[in-house]
């Protein structure tokens, strides 16, 4: 237990250093892009005069040197203040919190479904390589991986909204019907079906391919042969020896994807009008809304650091040979 504690403390300290580094890198990177928020806001309005732009710059603090802007940003961050988005006229933390639930619904459900289906189908395919089941599953995975998300999304809308009229084409709630409780949850679920399916197809393809390769790899190792030699059945070998070992790379891959959750999926959110963080980030980039962008990047990087930590712990739990102390 103390070994775990020491490991945790060391990793947490490393994480802090990484976060500080990320804060600096984020700041530099977002300022490398030409143009700024004041110009974009004035430009989209059209026909503003120079005084108007100067007034906006002063208001947004863009007339200060980069060092002063950086100092202000870090000082605010130390007080857990992510700053104010002048474009959206709202504090950054409120904007992020606003879209967090929608993002989590979309990303967590697709990842969870994709992970479970990916593990099962990948396993199924690898158990009888080159059999019909393997060919079908592998082909599906290939198609899923190669299909552009926006195209799949639009096709699903054409089928289920335009032709069949079963599901809404976009949005997250039925507008103007304030539904709460179970009705509200069902309403959101109905709206979530198409975007979740679209995203699941993509993630699932990744997981299937990885799981299949991983199972095939483990199945050829010596300890599996030994297990057969001991007289274990096919089923026992896979359940006790292959599955656990094959899961390791899957956990790592899941960790990578979970780290990216806060980024949302710009494509799926755009096609289905889903009010998530991906779209918010996208708009922030193209309007040079630096405060908002830095806030989202900061949050995402925190999540990546935390997920990496958790992934390592889970891996160690699945496979005791991975020593946490080293």
């Amino acid at each position: 237990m103390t070994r775990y504690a020491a490991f945790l403390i060391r990793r947490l300290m490393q994480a802090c250093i990484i976060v500080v580094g990320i804060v600096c890198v984020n700041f530099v990177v977002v300022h490398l892009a030409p143009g700024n928020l004041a110009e974009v806001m004035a430009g989209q309005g059209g026909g503003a005069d120079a005084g108007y732009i100067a007034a906006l710059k002063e208001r947004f603090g863009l007339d200060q040197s980069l060092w002063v802007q950086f100092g202000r940003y870090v000082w605010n961050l130390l007080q857990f203040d992510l700053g104010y988005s002048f474009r959206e006229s709202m504090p950054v933390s409120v904007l992020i919190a606003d879209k967090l639930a929608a993002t989590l619904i979309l990303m967590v459900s697709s990842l969870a479904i994709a992970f479970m289906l990916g593990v099962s189908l990948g396993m199924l395919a690898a158990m009888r390589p080159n059999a019909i089941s393997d060919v079908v599953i592998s082909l599906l995975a290939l198609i899923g991986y190669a299909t552009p998300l926006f195209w799949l999304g639009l096709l699903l809308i054409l089928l289920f909204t335009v032709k069949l009229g079963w599901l809404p084409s976009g949005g997250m709630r039925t507008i103007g019907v304030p539904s709460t409780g179970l009705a509200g949850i069902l309403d959101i679920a109905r709206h979530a079906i198409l975007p979740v399916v679209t995203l699941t197809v993509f993630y699932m393809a990744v997981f299937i391919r990885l799981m299949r390769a991983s199972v095939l790899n483990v199945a050829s190792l010596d300890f599996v042969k030994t297990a057969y030699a001991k007289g274990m059945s096919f089923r026992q070998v896979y359940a006790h020896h292959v599955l656990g070992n094959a899961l390791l790379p899957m956990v790592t891959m899941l960790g990578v994807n979970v780290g990216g959750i806060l980024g949302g999926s710009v494509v799926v959110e755009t096609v289905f009008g889903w009010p998530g963080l991906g779209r918010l980030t996208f708009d922030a980039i193209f309007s040079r809304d630096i405060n908002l962008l830095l806030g989202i990047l900061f949050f995402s990087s925190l999540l990546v650091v935390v997920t990496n930590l958790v992934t390592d712990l889970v891996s160690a739990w699945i496979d005791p040979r991975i020593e946490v102390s080293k």
Partner: protein
Amino acid sequence: MGSTRRDVIAGFAAAGLSAAMPHGLISQGMAQTGKPRKGGMLKMWLAEPVMLTGAFNSTGQIFQISGKMFDGLVSYDFDLNPKPQLATSWEVSPDGKSITFKLRSGVKWHDGQPFTAADVQFSATKVWKALHPRGRSTYRYLSDVEAPDALTAIFRFERPSPYVMNSLAGMESQILPRHLYEGKDILTNPANLRPVGTGPFKFKEWQRGQYILLERNPDYWDAPKPYLDGIVMVIMPDSASRAVALESSELDIAGAIPVSLADARRLEKIPTLTIPQRGSEAIAYQAFMELNLRRPYFQDVRVRQAMYHAIDRAFIVKNIYFDFGKPATGPISYENTKYYSGSVPRYEFSIARANALLDEAGMKRQSDGLRFRITQDPLPFGDHYLRSADYFKQQMALVGIAVDIRNQDFPTYYKRVYTDYDFDTTTTGAFGLTDPTVGIQRFYWSKNITPGVSFSNGSGYNSPAADAALEAAQIEVDPVKRAALFHDFQNIVMNDLPIFPIADAQYVTIKNKAVTNTEVDPFGIHGNFAEVYLNR
């Protein structure tokens, strides 16, 4: 978004009836003879705005939503003549230096407070003149607004400002409630996100990334209008999804070129949908190409004329704009009938003439057949700019000019074209709006060569003759003489060609045929929708 298959089928059934009648008859006829039906929610697409107040932010989507919650002092007929709205009458003094407005009595803000001349005074002096991107120049010479009584507002100007009478619509010169704004920071006032107006619709709810809900104002001064129960502004970021939503009746109406123009021609054939031909006169949208006159190649007017001869504008309108609009003949769109002039130099499409002019200008072809090499930056909004740039590149190759197209996002484009002047040619577009002094002058007036200001005179055009015509028009009170000055101006710039007018493009709106009375004034989808009703 609760569209069901039933809605779609109902829509087709209605369309079946209408298909029996000539197309023009049905859309026109309903607007005039049909008795307005009360009730129903209108589902309209809107790109998500950053705020809902247009008094100091002139972004396109705010223009669309804000005018439904705020009436202006006046509205306009199709010839852009003012009609009473919040002002019942007005009188411009003979010297043009003052305008006296008599205000409508009994008008209330959505929170129940009375609307008075003090609101007009506050908005004009503290908001439009100080903070509105265009208002800062429109109201530059406004010295004061007097409010001798609650229903009289007198605008005093240092110099005559005749264009002011053309800029008073509710979305352009928006009157804010003084009691909510005075003494507080205007730019961050919470009322910018939950506006309180005087218009036919009241703000109800804004779910970011999803929708904005407006509900009927039961105390509207022009009872029994508005006819609708409310408007849902649906936020849908993807144009292909918007096309599907229009097709499946999940959206009733979408403006500001909501789908690609090719898709618009496809949707037009769907029996439930229609594309109104009127309702963008006040927008007077034009696509054009700017030339950076600082470049040595472009100094000789014959080079510019040659390049313009090589661009077949009819081809562009037909194949890139899918016949939405007309080939442009000058800086002012034909839609602005009050000031448009057709008697300007025309440059017929002729590659031979272009090559001859370039030879004459001494731009000889090198051994590789090229005369010179330039860049082209299309404005990154909408693919018609990009496709026009591609066409430009092809045509220039025919006359020995190599073109490199540069794609970039808007902030980069902006910095290149309007801050650093690091460009050769652009493909872009802008609203001409209701008055050339407000909408057109910015691209041609030498005093508007202002680094860092977007949609200003980026080409660096500096012509004393054009300046003189524009400046005289700024203060000319006589409407006939003022129009004549703008005719001169059009003639001058079409001789000089600092900018290539390409297409007077239609600012396409697509709507369900059940949506009636959206084109009752030149603002169309930007109008206040008090008269709109659903015929289903």
